[in-house]
């Protein structure tokens, strides 16, 4: 429980940060909120030679609606910034709610949206709802930037497509026809618990017709996963309770949970069924209540 030695850098530009990262390769880590990184270092799980702090790099902390792009979220935005953002309240309340379900107030003040994504922990709360909303991430490297679909960005447990010398700059929720979305986190106490199951749903409704739907499951596979068969059950159909129940059952079959100290595989599957149902209901109800 003691931080090991490391070199500490506090660059003022992303370019400079990328250069330092380039020098160290995989032996350096980016430090933003530190809520995942520092505990791992204290527990001897990680021992980077260098930490590159983004503290002095300006910007990357706004949440804005940009015409033609969607809602642009700076990488250094904290979960509590997401909780309190009027832009999100007006456009994607479900993202604020997902952020509010994370950890505890202290961690929500310190952590960042990019950290929650880049750490790629299967139970992370933000990726499922962001994937359901077709979010993209922009990475800056030494020779320019690139944009990836978030769904493709997370590749495994603690693994992503980011290169050692790249830094996430922003997350974008594109303009879309989605009429409602929801995220349900199921943890084993009412605060400060990791998700046993997380389910996000985003729907595009036209009356009772499901024009489009995206269901994303968290904590039940190495990466957040789409429940594509469950989506197929609903897509293009008129929504009914039976169809929603069927989608829940399908998601429970599609997911790939493990048994661990928090829950058994069997329990997780059934919770996927329950919360897929609840997430769909909430996403669809929101659409109905607005019309």
């Amino acid at each position, binding site marked *: 429980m*003691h931080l090991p030695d490391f070199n500490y850098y506090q660059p003022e530009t992303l370019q400079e940060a990328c250069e330092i990262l380039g020098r160290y390769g995989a032996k350096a880590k980016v430090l933003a909120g530190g809520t995942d990184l520092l505990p791992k270092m204290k527990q001897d799980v990680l021992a980077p030679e260098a930490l590159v702090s983004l503290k002095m790099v300006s910007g990357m902390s706004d949440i804005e609606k940009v015409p033609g792009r969607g809602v642009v979220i700076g990488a250094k935005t904290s979960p509590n910034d997401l909780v309190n953002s009027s832009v999100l309240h007006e456009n994607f309340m479900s993202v604020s709610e997902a952020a509010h379900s994370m950890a505890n107030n202290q961690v929500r003040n310190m952590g960042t949206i990019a950290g929650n994504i880049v750490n790629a922990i299967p139970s992370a709360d933000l990726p499922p709802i962001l994937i359901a909303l077709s979010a993209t991430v922009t990475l800056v490297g030494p020779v320019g930037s690139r944009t990836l679909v978030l769904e493709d960005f997370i590749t495994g447990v603690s693994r992503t497509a980011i290169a050692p010398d790249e830094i996430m700059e922003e997350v974008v929720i594109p303009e879309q026809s989605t009429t409602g979305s929801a995220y349900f986190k199921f943890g084993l106490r*009412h605060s*400060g618990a990791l998700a046993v199951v997380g389910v996000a749903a985003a729907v595009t409704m036209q009356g009772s017709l499901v024009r489009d739907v995206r269901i994303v499951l968290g904590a039940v596979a190495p990466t957040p996963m789409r429940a594509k068969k469950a989506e197929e059950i609903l897509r293009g159909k008129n929504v009914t309770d039976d169809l929603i129940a069927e989608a829940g059952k399908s998601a429970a079959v599609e997911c790939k949970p493990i048994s661990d100290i928090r829950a058994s595989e069997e*329990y997780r599957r059934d919770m996927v069924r329950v919360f897929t149902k609840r997430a769909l209901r909430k996403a669809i109800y929101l659409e109905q209540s607005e019309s």
Partner: protein
Amino acid sequence: MEKYSVIGKSVPKIDSRAKVTGQAKYTGDLKFPNMLIGKILTSPHAHARILNIDTSEAEKLPGVKAVITHKDVPSLKYGISPARWDENIFCIDKVRFVGDKVAAVAALDEETVYKALKLIKVEYEVLPAVFDPIEALAEGAPQIHDEYRRNINTEIHQNFGNVEEAFAKAHLVRTDKFIGQRTYQCPIEPHSAISMWEGGKLTVYCSTQSPHYFQHYIAREFGLPMGDVRVIKTYVGGGFGGKLEPTGLEFAGAVLARITGRPVKMFYDRHDMFAHNRGRHRQIMEITTGVDKDGKILGMHANFIMDGGAYTSLGIASAYYAGAMLTLTYDFENYKFDMIRAYTNLPACGAQRGHGAPQPRYAFECHLDNVATQLGIDPLELRLRNARQPNTVTPNEFKVNSCEMTACLEKAREISDWEKKKGQLPKGKGIGVAVGSFVSGAGYPIYRTDLPHSAAIIKVHPDGSAATLYVGATDIGQGSDTVLCQMAAEAMGYTYENMKIISADTETTPHDFGAYASRQTLMSGAAVKQAGEDVKNQLLEMAGVMMDKNPGNLDCREGVIFSKLEPEKTLPFTAVAREYFVKNGPLVGRGSYTPPKLGGTFKGAPVGTSPAYSFAAQISEVQVDEETGEINVNHVWDVHDCGMVINPALLHAQVHGALYMGMGESIWEEVQFDAKGKILNPNMSDYRMPTALDMPVITSALVESCEPAGPWGVKEVGEGATIPTMGCYANAIYDAMGVRVNSLPLSYEKVWRALKEKREKEKGGGKKKK
């Protein structure tokens, strides 16, 4: 005029300003010139022979000042319970659990300490290990201590009255089996100790519940006179039973300090705390009760096995307490108690809030609800029919003076609206009841001695503007410094605001056994009252001379001495105290308390004896999510008989805190291990204590009660409110969903599984009917 001027009032806690401003220093905050940092190396194996320990690489590391193993420390075995001293400062021949203590390092800084620990090479021969008490008791199981055949640490067989005959006469005899879980106290402040020597005298600053027991065992281990060991308690961030006994940090620190000639600070981190443990035992509990057709209990048999872990700790007492406390709340004559405490290769268990009692109480209260259901009697009514009455004696010979069990149940029924809710709440909502009782201090100390249990000195300052109370009583956050100052001021006829206190320092304060068994308000309070009255008597003598009155006609209240016959004739406390000092020197009051001889003569009779017992009834209302098993506790009503209340705010805070812990143990908390005995959740993320968001609305209520054995009629509260909680929630869940989870914790998944099994059974049953 109110009867009392200082007690019975919610005065502010005496240390609240220091704590909220950060001025309060805990042991971990203290620094001394040249102080070294030390840490203990522990075993990675659950059971292994130590073949060799090589410390040479660690010793070479720059900054390391000393590395010690069993070769450098006394080999005298210690423990807290003298009947079973089975621990060594460091393991000699083998290690018995993951976390057993093997060596220690002192270095200039924390970073070097951690590096040095990694450089100590210990060669182990791994031995087969056993983690389940029933497996440990089987023939051929790995032998954990050579001296204890079949890993039996403690075996108890008690038989009062004639249980078999009672069962033969009974209308219904029912047996249920329940299983508890391992929990850990998780005080917010980690254990630490700073040791330093001045010549032959050792001083230890530490986070402890009992400076006296620390002093006693440190002196014994090093062959020092008690007078050469000074133990000073700093501010303590909670103990709950886990800081009552030596932790190993004091012993290792004392040796490292002697070798290096420098103060040494030793500490546990959160993981170390879980490994050191001394938390709640996991008990396997079978209860059989015989009742008549009205539900009157005729006899009861408790047949338990407990997982003790690798050492005894306070476990002998826990084992006896588990059965002893079951006789308190209900009046029945025939009682049989069988218990085996088994050694396993897991961290040692000890005393956790409520000691051995909460899990057996959970089992008994669930079992009684099953009996009530079977007989078609309202569970609260069944409890009323059996409730113990004042001035009675339990079958195991505990004398109960004040006892408002009936009033607690009736009041709880009334304020919770039980009659309108029981069996009538919508599906998913339920209400449950359970009761409990606890000692107000143990009748006998942990080791055999005729020392008084508590003592107090009050020194009035020369000008009378302040009085300092010196007590060995130990404030670990529960507020004993505050209530004892209130009691001192009341007894002296003084004011709380002018009281100062110095407590829990074995050199400056008089002897007291410390904070355990809910003893201090009654026992330390009795000593303080006597000391206060001693001051008052001397002061009134002096005032008699000054006022030319018979001292017998004078009294003192809130710092004013007055004639009872002519109340307008007064003198200030300060003036009389000053005059006393001028004429006689220091004005000092003294008091001590020894409980009367209590209990029977059978084996184990002392455990559970107490001058007085608290009683409590709890009712909870829960909401269960039928699909997920998630439990929301909406409201809890706790009604306590705890005698006269010295500080209502602190009392209700104790109830909230006890309930909080009971609630965590009911639904969330469990220390989990892998197949090799390694703890899987030694952290606050996966060892899930409740958060503020999990807490229900709490109504903490009292019934009128006055205990003749306690000063001003006081009894305990701190542990009693933890005891009913687990059974209370289990019964509420049963009321909500019609399922009974027979093991703790009552986790969401277990409730979900029970509901699923019930649905499948109903479906299957339905098909058969067709």
